[in-house]
């Protein structure tokens, strides 16, 4: 095998094994076929959903929701993370509250948010944003708190204002962790999107499609949705990785 092929082959090995196992399971019994829709049927559903536009439409709706929420929740999360990372007072007051609220499952908020904000898109966006908020705020806080004294001292020496210290020392040194946070948030907001689509009043979205298919026992459709969610998440992550590499080019390249 040429060295070029090897990474691709390795990357595909795992999915291939899973698919093989899947096909085998689906042939076990009717009961198994219920959960393990045969690959061929999944493929057919995929083609159907692609050609009638369902997939693109639903995926687009979910993607838009997830990304908007990521933007809202992520930026608020970073802002609050920075603020609490820098100010001990804020940290003491806000962090326990955030930590407590963070543990309340979306499901807990659901009735309250529905009562206060209705069942519309706003409420959904709020809940998804909340799920993007937590990972970013946590990681940003961690990043801001891990500033090395050595570097902080340079800032003191040159009379950095708080804003300069933030922009030139704290922010760049926290950046790797902030990226981890955003990448966690990406997954969280995806998941929450599907979740609220499923638990709130219906609008377009992969979650809605998935739930309906599940109710109708169309495991094949569910799996097409799942695969679609996964692949889109993967693609977003790759894009995001490029951005990360660009912004963190000051780190020596990693050689294994």
């Amino acid at each position, binding site marked *: 095998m040429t060295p070029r092929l090897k990474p691709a082959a390795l990357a595909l090995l795992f999915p291939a094994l899973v698919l093989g196992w899947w096909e085998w399971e689906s042939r076990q019994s009717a009961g198994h076929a219920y959960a393990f829709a045969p690959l061929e049927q999944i493929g057919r559903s995929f083609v159907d959903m692609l050609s009638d536009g369902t997939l693109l439409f639903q995926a687009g709706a979910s993607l838009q929701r997830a990304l908007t929420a990521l933007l809202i929740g992520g930026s608020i999360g970073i802002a609050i993370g920075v603020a609490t990372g820098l100010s001990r007072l804020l940290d003491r007051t806000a962090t326990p509250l955030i930590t407590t609220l963070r543990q309340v499952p979306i499901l807990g908020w659901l009735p309250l948010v529905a009562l206060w904000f209705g069942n519309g898109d706003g409420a959904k966006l709020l809940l998804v944003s909340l799920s993007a908020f937590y990972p970013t705020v946590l990681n940003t806080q961690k990043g801001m708190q891990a500033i090395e004294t050595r570097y902080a001292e*340079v800032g003191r020496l040159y009379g950095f204002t708080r804003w300069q210290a933030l922009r030139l020392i704290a922010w760049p040194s926290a950046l790797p962790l902030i990226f981890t946070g955003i990448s966690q948030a990406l997954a969280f907001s995806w998941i929450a999107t599907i979740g609220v689509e499923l638990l709130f009043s219906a609008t377009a979205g992969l979650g809605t499609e998935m739930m309906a298919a599940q109710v109708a026992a169309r495991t094949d459709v569910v799996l097409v949705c799942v695969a679609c969610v996964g692949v889109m998440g993967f693609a977003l992550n790759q894009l995001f990785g490029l951005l990360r590499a660009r912004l963190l080019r000051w780190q020596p390249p990693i050689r294994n």
Partner: protein
Amino acid sequence: MSDPRILRDPALRPTSTGTGAVRISGLSKHYAIGGKAMTVLDGIDLAIRPGEFVSIVGPSGCGKSTLLRLIVGLDTDYDGEIRLDDARVAGTGLERGLVFQDHRLFPWMTVAKNVEVALLNQKLPRERRDRLIAEHLALVGLADFGDAYPYQLSGGMAQRAAIARALVNEPKVLALDEPLGALDALTRVKVQAELQRIWMEAGTTMIMVTHDVDEALFLGDRVVVMSSRPGRIARIVDVDLPHPRDRASPLLHRLKDEILAELTREPREDDGTLVSFPPRIRN
């Protein structure tokens, strides 16, 4: 400006004009290691005239870096007093600069940006700022490396970049912590000459820690010799020679022997190892 050679003759120079006088009196500093208190500096008294060049030599771990940190105000937890032009030092200030022993370049900035850091709090027009940065990078031989990141520099290059950063905003008092330690002999001689030129032209007060007694004598108006356990001033040697000096001067050789003798007076154990070098921890 008059002949710097004459201006720099300590005997001829007026001591009270200009700013940048540092007066240290009764200075002591303690650290705790593993719960045990340790005296690092003990009763330091030192008056530095404006525009003076003071070299500090002393065994490893005797508190030289600690002393510089206190002077620039990075550490304000000490006993005694440090005054700059009669004002008590209570924190860092742009009029006091420091070249750290480790270079401390920000890894996330290019070399040029790292130098710019020192200029951020001065309202300078952009072109002037850029010109200053370029000039100082050229000064330390890094003209081609403005866009490199610190991980792409060699040890000596990083140290030179740190020197450029410290010089670029022309502080009144500049403390240098072994700034030339990682430089090869030739580069070292050149950077020494540059340091001296800047010192003479700008009238900066310079306090330089070095391990090279030749260097201390070549540059310093006075050489402070420290001893350890705890860090004290063992002796202050006046170097009564105008600048720039001739490295081969017999006076410098004599003074060097004196200083080395002072340094080797350090108590030592008999087994030949170096256990006695660092200050002992006291309970």
